[in-house]
């Protein structure tokens, strides 16, 4: 039930417990216990909402920053990653294979806010060798969900 439960709530965290129990074919109390276990094991880390900010009046700027860093003896990349992830404007930090080491997804209110984060905070970290900032122009699909118009049901109303 664990895998199926995770697959469902990854797409719809608002589904209610009773419905979850019905579609999984188990008792409601089992769902409650399993969710509690998943939370305490740190498998479920949060329940978020996917928002298409472009459709609101709120201005947001997102950037993807490639960072090359000097790994530290005994710590690897952990120290610098932990330092970077403390900034609230940092949405994601990934350790990458390939041409650079860390990838940061940053969200700011303005272009200036993002660029000053890069020049004032990120580049000045001792371990950081270089950065490359890419601004995100448009999100077509995010978290497995296409953000544009929903597709209509094009099937015939009644078929054998």
């Amino acid at each position, binding site marked *: 039930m664990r895998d199926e439960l995770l697959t469902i709530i990854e797409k719809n965290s608002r589904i209610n417990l009773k419905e979850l129990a*019905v*579609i*999984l074919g188990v008792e409601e109390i089992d769902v409650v216990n399993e969710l509690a276990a998943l939370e305490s094991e740190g498998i479920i880390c949060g329940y978020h909402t996917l928002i298409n900010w472009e459709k609101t009046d709120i201005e947001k700027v997102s950037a993807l920053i490639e960072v090359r860093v000097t790994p530290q003896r005994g710590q690897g990349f952990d120290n610098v990653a932990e330092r970077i992830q403390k900034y609230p404007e940092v949405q994601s930090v990934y350790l990458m294979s390939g041409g650079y080491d860390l990838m940061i997804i940053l969200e700011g209110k303005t272009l200036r806010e993002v660029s000053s984060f890069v020049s004032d905070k990120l580049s000045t970290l001792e371990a950081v060798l270089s950065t490359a900032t890419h601004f995100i122009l448009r999100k077509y699909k995010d978290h497995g969900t296409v953000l544009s118009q929903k597709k209509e049901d094009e*099937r*015939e*109303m009644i078929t*054998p």
Partner: protein
Amino acid sequence: MRNPLADKVVEIKPSGIRKFFDIVSEMKDAISLGVGEPDFDTPWHIRDEGIYSLEKGKTHYTSNAGLMELRQEICNYLYRKQGLTYHPAKEVLITVGGSEAIDMGLRAMCNPGDEVLIPQPSYVSYEPCAVLAGATPVIINLKAENEFRLTARELEEAITEKTKILILPFPNNPTGAIMERKDLEEIAEVILKHDIFVMSDEIYSELTYKEKHVSIAELPGMQERTILINGFSKAYAMTGWRLGYACGPEAIIQQMTKIHQFAIMCAPTTSQHAAVEALKNGDGDVEEMRTAYNQRRRYLMHALREMGLECFEPYGAFYVFPCIKEFGMTSDEFAERLLEEEKLAVVPGTAFGDCGEGFLRISYAYSLERLKEALERLGRFVERLR
């Protein structure tokens, strides 16, 4: 002017579904649980292969029986899933949907006066296809108390010396019934005893929610007297691609291929290329869709139980078949009033045979949100009737 029409064709009753379809399509903002096809779009990697084949200019006829690569993949698939061995060059025919395989099979096997046993409720095309093939359809009325499975006794009672073919439509549309191994073993005994053939329509074989689907061809002595029909519509959500297949004894498949060659030439080439990809890399998609259907099935069954509607638990396809006899209306009346009063379309059980009277077919090839909305409407309606 002379009558331009063939009596045999004119005498065929129009599909009960068609009649209801006309009513529904005139109604604005109705929602429907009446659809007999997946709500999922074909998985992208399969569509992509279709597109790629077009880009490469694979726009010509294939051989009459279909691409050898696809026939080989079908044989691999049937071995993987059912443990069945077929010869790709001699015992497989790729058709335009499972429907064509039904038609070709009956035409290849029936002589005038041969009786074809058709368990009902079942898919709408067996009876007309049998008539067009010159055979006499003999209906076996399946019963709710048997969960709409075909029993050996029912079969035995329907057999005469003219009986030639039994159509075995499981997992079943519209009832959602399945036949498990033990059920099939009992049937097979009767079939062998009377030396008849089986046309096993297994188009929903991937959509079972209990044990893995069993084909009657797996049982001893049965493969040599069974035409196995399957296709890509339901398992891979490929209804619009129109692609199915028939596997069976060489003698029958060769005659079917002969008619297919004259009537159809070959199944659509693009679809065949896409289907190769489906069989090679589509197992994961099938599993995902099956999981989603099963969740909806549980949700729907739960909702029907809460409404107090009597319904056996179906373990196949994507339909439930609740009983509405308690309301003292025919299936048609119930479905029409439900449509008028709550703007919800379901299919009356009678569209699938007279013995579907008193039942409705509800499809769960819909998102949970849609099901929820629809079931609220059904619940309100049932509440009012009581």
